[in-house]
């Protein structure tokens, strides 16, 4: 490790909480946020008055899609009567939900930070009669989107699809192989009562599904959902006050390459910079990971992370997941044990992944529990904005 200050080890994840999650939950985003925040604080073994940092992702006013329902940070602060010494609402992307909060508690700027992500994209999609166009909340396409939306790349599906096409072209990976990611995750979701879709999914169902934007089909896309997730990050020296903290062994966030979807130089290799930076902060190795909660806005994003994290070699993810055994609950690398966003619901930005990793490491994952889970990998997004972490049992 050399002289690296692995500051994240001075932080722990102390609590996770979630509201009701579903395709449509008929309560305001604000109430869902309060449900999740209150549950997370209780889960940590803390009182609301212990909280001195608030954060949400994304920050206010940055919604590119209907159904981004975080609300306003000041209104949450007001409703809960919290005094903060640190707050954050990032406008651009975010490497990991707990990244900024861990920095805050590791540097003494706060003791206990709660961060939340609230979505009502399920309701928004229903209201729009289908999944809405990205950027349709604004009259013109700004920044990187100015090169994408006008030509008809009106959704993240269209923006990510060329990555999948290029990857499959370069490495000869097939849809028959990649099908095992959504199919296996659906089997996991069947055991998770909170998951949005729990009915069985087969490879044949996948291959017969309609195309959204080639080669991405319906079951390659995460499920728009309503729900809130909150995570409490605490200073590690408060551990005696906490019910069941989880360690942050290592984390890294990297912005690299060209920050727009269509300009990424090598669409066959994504996320390697963040993974490499993360592995440089720990003596643990890919073989030490017991459970992998890898971002899956789309199937192809799981592929990126399986390869970037070193669970398999570049171009080998198709063979790695084929048959589903290796990534099943009793396989060598159980993948997205809660169903992931593909079946569990698009809770976004790895909030759902982080919550599940914490449950796994505590032994509180119920029917999806992986035996003796001591090390969990959590990753977020991919491409120019990417975050990777290892969480470990206390």
């Amino acid at each position, binding site marked *: 490790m050399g002289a690296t200050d692995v500051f994240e080890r001075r932080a722990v994840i102390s609590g996770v909480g979630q509201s009701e999650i579903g395709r449509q939950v008929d309560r305001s985003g604000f109430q869902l946020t309060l449900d999740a925040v209150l549950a997370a604080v209780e889960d940590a073994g803390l009182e609301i008055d212990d909280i001195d940092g608030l954060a949400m992702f994304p920050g206010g006013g940055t919604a590119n899609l209907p159904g981004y329902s975080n609300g306003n940070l000041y209104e949450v602060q007001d409703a809960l009567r919290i005094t903060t010494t640190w707050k954050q609402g990032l406008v651009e992307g975010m490497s990991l939900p707990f990244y900024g909060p861990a920095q805050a508690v590791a540097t003494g700027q706060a003791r206990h930070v709660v961060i939340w992500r609230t979505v009502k994209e399920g309701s928004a999609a229903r209201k729009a009669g289908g999944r809405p166009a990205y950027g349709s909340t604004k009259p*013109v*396409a700004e920044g990187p989107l100015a090169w994408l939306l006008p*030509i*008809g790349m*009106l*959704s993240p599906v269209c923006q990510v699809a*060329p990555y999948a*096409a290029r990857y499959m072209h370069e490495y000869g990976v097939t849809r028959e192989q990649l099908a095992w990611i959504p199919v296996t995750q659906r089997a996991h979701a069947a055991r998770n009562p909170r998951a949005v879709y729990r009915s069985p999914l087969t490879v044949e169902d996948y291959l017969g599904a309609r195309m959204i*934007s080639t080669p991405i089909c319906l079951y390659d896309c995460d499920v728009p959902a309503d729900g809130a997730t909150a995570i409490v990050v605490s200073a590690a020296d408060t551990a005696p006050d906490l019910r069941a903290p989880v360690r942050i062994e290592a984390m890294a966030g990297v912005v690299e390459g060209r920050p727009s979807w269509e300009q990424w130089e090598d669409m066959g290799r994504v996320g390697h910079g963040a993974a490499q930076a993360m592995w440089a902060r720990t003596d643990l190795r890919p073989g030490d990971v017991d459970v992998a909660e890898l971002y899956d806005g789309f199937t192809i994003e799981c592929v990126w992370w399986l390869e970037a994290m070193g669970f398999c070699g570049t171009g080998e993810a198709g063979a790695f997941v084929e048959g589903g055994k290796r990534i099943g609950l009793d396989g060598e690398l159980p993948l997205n044990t809660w169903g992931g966003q593909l079946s569990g619901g698009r809770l976004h930005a790895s909030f759902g992944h982080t919550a599940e990793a914490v449950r796994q490491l505590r032994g509180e994952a119920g029917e999806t529990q992986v035996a003796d889970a001591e090390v969990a990998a959590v990753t977020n997004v991919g491409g120019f904005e990417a975050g990777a972490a290892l969480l470990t049992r206390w």
Partner: protein
Amino acid sequence: MDATIGIPPAVNEETEPFWTAAQQGRLVVEGCTACGAESFPPRGICRSCRSRETAPTEITDRGVVYSLTVNHQRWLPDLEVPYAMVLVEFPGHPGVRVAGRLRGCDPEEASIGMAVDIGFEPGPGGCAIPSFVAVPAGGGS
């Protein structure tokens, strides 16, 4: 295939030369007058040598499809589907990749590595969008 249903671009100091040239059917990128490198999208600074001395430079070469997708989903009311979109690179112009629609072949015939000619067509809000034209296999130069 109509491409005018959609969301128009915000046009700013850096991107105005591109969108103005697009209306004339010309593809301009950002050329560095100091080192000669080209980059896209324009940033008002050379991505190679960081010189601020840049000028719009036209590309007329035939391009090659780096990757693509065929969109089947009607994201907006009245959007005509399916349509192919391609990411195009130019062998003589490293540092430049341009996304656009594809015309001149069935969307399902689009493939990585295929040759395309530069073109534009009417897009949302009165803008002109890149709309590459498929070169028939064995097609002339």
